[in-house]
């Protein structure tokens, strides 16, 4: 196992600004988690810019520079197709999911783009089964900041839980 892709905090970012941006990212992530945990998957693409990219990547593939993603959306069209498929075509047992997001760090801010990271864990609960850990991983994000609102330009979710329990229905 190798260390995951870490990007050290760049020195030039003003501390006060970094704090403010971190708060904005935290608010954004909490809204994102809330929508997914409520099961409102068709609202999920609204968190992205029109050219937003979403990738869910196993940590070992990332470590070995293998390009395959477990989920991959390039742009709003693919994001909407993924959301529609989950809402209307895929067959899966009903489930609760709960995101826990922490360790948010803002590492860069340039041209209205915030570069940030966060840790996430997702607990999944199925009917008549004890709650289990579905995923733990890290978000590597680029947010577009417009006024005081953020949109995801790129979110790469790199998960440590390489051996996926059965399947991942909802995007982390």
């Amino acid at each position, binding site marked *: 196992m190798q260390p995951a892709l870490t990007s050290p905090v760049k020195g030039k970012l003003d501390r006060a600004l970094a704090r403010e941006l971190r708060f904005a990212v935290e608010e954004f992530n909490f809204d994102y988690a809330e929508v997914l945990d409520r099961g409102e998957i068709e609202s999920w693409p609204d968190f992205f810019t029109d050219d937003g990219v979403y990738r869910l990547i196993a940590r070992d593939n990332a470590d070995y520079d293998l390009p395959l993603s477990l989920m991959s*959306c390039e742009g709003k069209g693919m994001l909407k197709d993924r959301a529609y498929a989950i809402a*209307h075509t895929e067959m899966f047992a009903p489930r609760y999911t709960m995101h826990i997001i922490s360790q948010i760090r803002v590492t860069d801010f340039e041209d209205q783009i915030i570069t940030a990271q966060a840790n996430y864990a997702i607990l999944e609960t199925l009917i008549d089964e004890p709650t289990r850990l579905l995923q733990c991983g890290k978000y590597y994000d680029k947010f577009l900041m417009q006024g005081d609102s953020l949109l995801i330009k790129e979110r790469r979710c790199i998960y440590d839980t390489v051996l996926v329990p059965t399947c991942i229905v909802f995007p982390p």
Partner: protein
Amino acid sequence: MTNNARFANGVDEQGAADISDLQWPENPSEIPDWVYTDQRIYDLEQQRIFRGRTWNYVALEVELPKPGDYIRSYLGDTPIIVARDEAGEVHAFENRCAHRGAEFCKTYRGSAKQFVCPYHQWTYDLSGELVSVPFRRGVKGRGGMPADFKLGEHSLRKLSVTCRHGVVFASACEDMEPFEDYLGPDMLDQFDTVFDGRPLKLLGVHRNTMPGNWKLYQENLKDPYHATLLHTYLTTFGLFVAGNKTMIMTDPKGRHSTLCNARPQGRPENDQSKTEIRSFHAAMELADPRVIQLIPEKDSPWTSNAITLWPNLVLLRQTNILGARHIVPMGPNQFMLIWTTFGFADDDTDMEDHRLRQNNIFGPGGFIGIDDNEAIKFVQDGLLHSVPRHGVAPLGQDEEDSDVVITDRAIRSMYRHYREEMGL
């Protein structure tokens, strides 16, 4: 018994449990619950099938391109290592130190000159031969190995290995027939449709556990009935529809099979069979249809080949997706699935991006992968939680044209072979 450097041939192993209480039903379309849940059956399968007279998929050569490269893999449920030696030859051997039994290789892949068990530093070469042990003569002439200790008798247990078109198979049997004979000419032709001998490019690997018996996954890919019903994504976009041109073929022994489908241009609006299919969503349109776009690349009449090779490999060519799914049993009620996804070394960037995009369809987060993984869990839940009864696979006939779609023929033929191999 010596510390043997080979597995005992699976069929000759001792100590099989008494299974005389298990009676296979008279009706050939019935499959008893206990084949999916009984630990004794599971243990016997490891002996007679996975360590028996079978070629087991263990790796793609592209995963170990250079001398010294290796990956962790499995023969049945047994952890093994597949490695390429200095001369370029591929070896497979058990990932279990011959000394105290440590599963010493704990990385998915890597490159090494030799393997050293961290517990007592027993050192093996890239073919699994024991080459050195520390303190062989003890310290100050005291202790150490007995005088008659021979390194060569304590190597890692080795497997026979064969490669075809970049795919590595292993067997516990020393006298296996050539892989080409194991497949037979028709299945070999199917195999070569996916692996045509061009160098591959590894795109990535996904892993998931499945709360189900490993045979359910073989069945799943031998079951065109479900493909046309469960998978809305396939039916809606015409990737697999009951009215498509189809061929289902098994090898003469009934253990391998292929399920081929030719996708028509456009959506299957006029397909008569779709009125039977509840999952057909006429209203569904893709905002970005690149995901299902077919870029012609093979001289094949089929747009999808779902190939099952006994006992542990599913090969899937669907549109432009190419993948090998390695079935790893983990007890009667669970298995692991390792999805190795690849393209060809001569793919341009656009083609590679296209394959990566299209892979949203498969894997444990795929539009279709999710359906299957969930369905298999549903089946095992039912088998485990209920009073046992026999399942049925009654559709179609054993002698029928190869273009009959709504049939369980390939499932029945697998179990005919299974019973023979297992002595049931």
